[in-house]
């Protein structure tokens, strides 16, 4: 076990969207930041940043304007975490966050007042707020119903151009697909390998050569998201030059390239902002020290580190992130043992139909916070003066049904940092 003698201003617990955003915002404000966390939603996400898309969930009502949707949800569910945020704060958080991604070579685009319709690998269309630039042309082509060709590859499972064409046939008649051999690739292919391979301009040329005969009469060519790992825009631009067509990416099923791309950006970008990252490590113990500071044990065995911080942001996600845990009787919070608002017993956690439009009550369980995003203890008062929470662990939201995953994580992280730094 090693000791880190520094005293940090803030410990960010979690390395998903909320944790990454919190570390970014806090370091940008000049705070001394340490961050721990392992695999989370980022690694499995599509790369889309949803802000707010559906409300009320039981009606499946979709909103083109996320801001109106936020207003509506706050009106109807006053405890929704968006109720604690001003529009200005949400906008600012997303601007800083996507600005940072863009700076690091992963440009995000979208429009201010409107959600964007994006194509999913299932062939469904989802509303989201910010998409990687490399996906944008797909939404444009969809909007125009332009003649487009989806390319997929022998050996890349879980991505079927034909499925996209079939599910969209009534809506987008000029969508077609073709399956080809990836240049030099046979057998089972993985997005990350293909992305590496496409770093080589010669492979791109061969790729274009084998697709060109199928693409004569289309304006757009869509690919599974495998077009480069660190600088996808460069690959896309090169392909557009070679092809003379507009190119776009569609996310693949997880684990897709979107995760590694985002993670790579933060792995590069956060340390250079001075963040001490303890990556792939979890907080295993917390002690409250005299004077109110926290002491954390991070990681286990020989690799364990002890760090001290004046304050902390809990951004540990839900069940998949491991911020919440369940035994047969109840839901618990994993790091501090904070109270979790939840249905009375396990029978109330899930509905009998998976796709029940109301969503599952377990998914709105979570941590309640005060207006400064401090988790409440059993007394109903903040459990600690200097502990803040952000992201999916917050109660009274169902990001999966409301379509507010990454956006809510980023915006609440922003607010938590603001309050912490007051």
């Amino acid at each position, binding site marked *: 076990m090693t000791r880190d003698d520094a005293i940090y201003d803030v410990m960010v617990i979690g390395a998903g969207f909320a944790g990454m955003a919190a570390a970014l915002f806090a370091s940008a404000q000049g705070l001394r930041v340490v961050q721990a966390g392992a695999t989370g*939603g980022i690694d*499995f*996400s*599509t790369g*889309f940043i949803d802000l707010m898309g*559906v409300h009320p969930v039981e009606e*499946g009502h*979709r909103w*083109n304007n996320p801001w109106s949707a936020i207003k509506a949800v706050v009106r109807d569910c006053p405890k929704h975490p968006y109720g604690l945020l001003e529009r200005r704060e949400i906008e600012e958080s997303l601007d800083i966050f996507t600005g940072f991604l863009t700076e690091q070579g992963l440009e995000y685009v979208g429009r201010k007042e409107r959600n*964007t*319709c994006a194509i*999913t*690998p*299932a*062939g*469904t*269309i*989802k*509303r989201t707020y910010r998409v990687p630039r490399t996906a944008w042309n797909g*939404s*444009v082509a969809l*909007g*125009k119903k332009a003649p487009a060709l989806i390319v997929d590859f*022998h*050996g890349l*499972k*879980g*991505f*079927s151009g*034909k*499925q996209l064409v*079939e*599910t969209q*046939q009534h*809506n987008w008649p000029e969508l077609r697909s073709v*399956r080809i051999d990836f240049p030099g690739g*046979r*057998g089972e292919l993985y997005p990350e390998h293909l992305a590496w391979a496409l770093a080589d301009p010669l492979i791109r040329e061969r790729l274009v050569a084998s697709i060109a005969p199928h693409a004569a009469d289309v304006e757009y060519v869509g690919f599974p998201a495998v077009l480069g790992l660190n600088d996808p825009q460069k690959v896309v631009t090169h392909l557009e030059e070679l092809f003379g067509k507009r190119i776009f990416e569609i*996310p693949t*099923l*997880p684990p897709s390239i979107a995760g590694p791309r985002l993670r790579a950006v933060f792995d590069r970008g956060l340390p250079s902002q001075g963040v001490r990252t303890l990556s792939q490590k979890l907080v295993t113990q917390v002690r409250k020290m005299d004077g109110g500071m926290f002491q954390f044990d991070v990681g286990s065995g020989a690799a364990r580190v002890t760090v001290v911080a004046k304050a902390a942001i809990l951004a540990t996600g839900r*069940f*998949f992130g491991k911020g919440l*845990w*369940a*035994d*047969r009787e109840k839901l618990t919070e994993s790091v501090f043992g904070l109270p979790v608002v939840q249905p009375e017993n*396990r*029978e109330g956690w*899930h509905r*009998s*139909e*998976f*796709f029940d439009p109301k969503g*599952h009550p*377990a*998914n709105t369980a979570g941590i309640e916070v005060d207006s400064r995003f401090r988790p409440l203890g059993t007394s109903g008062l903040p459990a600690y003066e200097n502990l803040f929470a952000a992201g999916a662990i917050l109660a009274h939201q169902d990001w*999966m*049904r409301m*379509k507010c995953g990454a956006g809510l994580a980023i915006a609440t992280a922003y607010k938590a940092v603001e309050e912490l730094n007051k």
Partner: protein
Amino acid sequence: MKRLQTRVLILGGGATGTGLARDLALRGVQCLLAERRDINAGASGGNHGLLHSGARYVASDVEAAVECREEGAIIKRIAPQCVDDSGGIFVAVQGDDERYVADFERMCAKSQVPVRELDVLAAREMEPTLSDSLIAAYAVEDASVDPFMLSLDNMAQALSLGARYLRNSKVVGFVRDGGRIQFTRFNDETTGEFFEVEAEIVVNATGAWAGLVAAMAGAHINILYSSGSLLVTQDRITRRVVNRLRKAADSDILVPGGTVSILGTTSVTINSPDDCRPTVAETNLIIDDARAMIPVLETTRYIRAYSGVRPLVISGDGSDARSVSRGFSLIDHAQDNVGNFITITGGKLTTYRLMAEKTADVVCEKLGVDAPCLTRTEPLPASSMGKWTEPGRAPKSWIQNRDADDLILCECEMVSKNAIDSIIGNMVGMRGNSMLKAIGLRSRVGKGPCQGGFCGLRITGHLYDQGHVQGGHGITELKSFVGSRWRGFSPILWGLPLVQADLQEALYCGALDMELDHNTEYFSCEDDE
């Protein structure tokens, strides 16, 4: 309306119906089996898979014990591919009824069920997960049987001898002509189509649904529906079948099923056989009770729950499900003035062959066919239709026969694209809707920790690629597949399975918006540059 003809029409594709199809086919009698959903959609796909030695019934039902002993031995002989002859043990723990324990050997002797007393320490050596508070242990000849392989193999041989099989065919009515059924009317619930079958004899082998089906023909059977739930563990906990040595109750038995173990079962009276589904309450009850016998059952990881309905035919005024006879009922509805209609229901998986034999005897007598039953001795050939249900088969085949272009579509159970194609290839004439579910029941797909979440999506892509599904249909079927896996998944959502369920919903709803209606107009956001 489409109309088909056959000599014998069998209703219901469980162990009994498929066993009967084979029996008749072996006797040279033309038959057609029609099933509402697909093979083993009822109790035959929702049972414990215990090939009973008879020992469980020695106290309550000597006749059933004897039948099980005899039939169990026959199945082991004729269908070894479907059986894991693991042996079984009965154990009692502190607090269990010692009089029952003391009487056990004598009761077994009465039904000639072989039993051997074990030293409790020896028993714990044989099965180290047994509780240290054991007070008695006996070895018996229990085994486990793969009900899917069994029914698929039965059906495969029947098909090879000229029988026909229709899935997605639900009986919705009968057209009677005086004292006989002239036509049986069906509905394909996946397409809405209706059709009729004309047969000389109609056999109702619809298990728990037999009363509902018989009523459509104007016949009456009084059936009590007893639903039982079971839990599947991630790993195999014991080598042998382990029974609690006490008067039959809930959570008494742990049966190995290849790489997993199956724990159960409850007995809950329900109003309709369609109401059957495992619940959170039953899950808790099973674990709370069974941990006395095998403590690790408290902490082990569960993969899913499932349930089935026992049709308990009431002859007397039995009101408690467990005390009603579990022997089978073979009813000639000539007694209800329907001369060419027979019901076979009740019984056990273990005795399906005997049930089929007795039924076929009556059918042949009515048809005037003089052909002896062959199933008592004739081996049941292993079929390519049934083989993919075996755990370990797909991975082995992947490693041994892999070609360069094959891919693993189901990663939990290592089922490859070629394996899926071979399953589809074997379904000639049975294709149509609900392909994903059909693949699920013919293989291990959807049975691993992801419960179909990931493999369902990948296989759907493959079905689109191969042209087996079109338009929005593949998505509809995927939703239905995931929805039906959820029935068994939702009762066990704590610990890691809840983590998995969270990921599944993040993917299907969070990322893919699949809970929303995609048929309505949703393209109002135009994206211009």
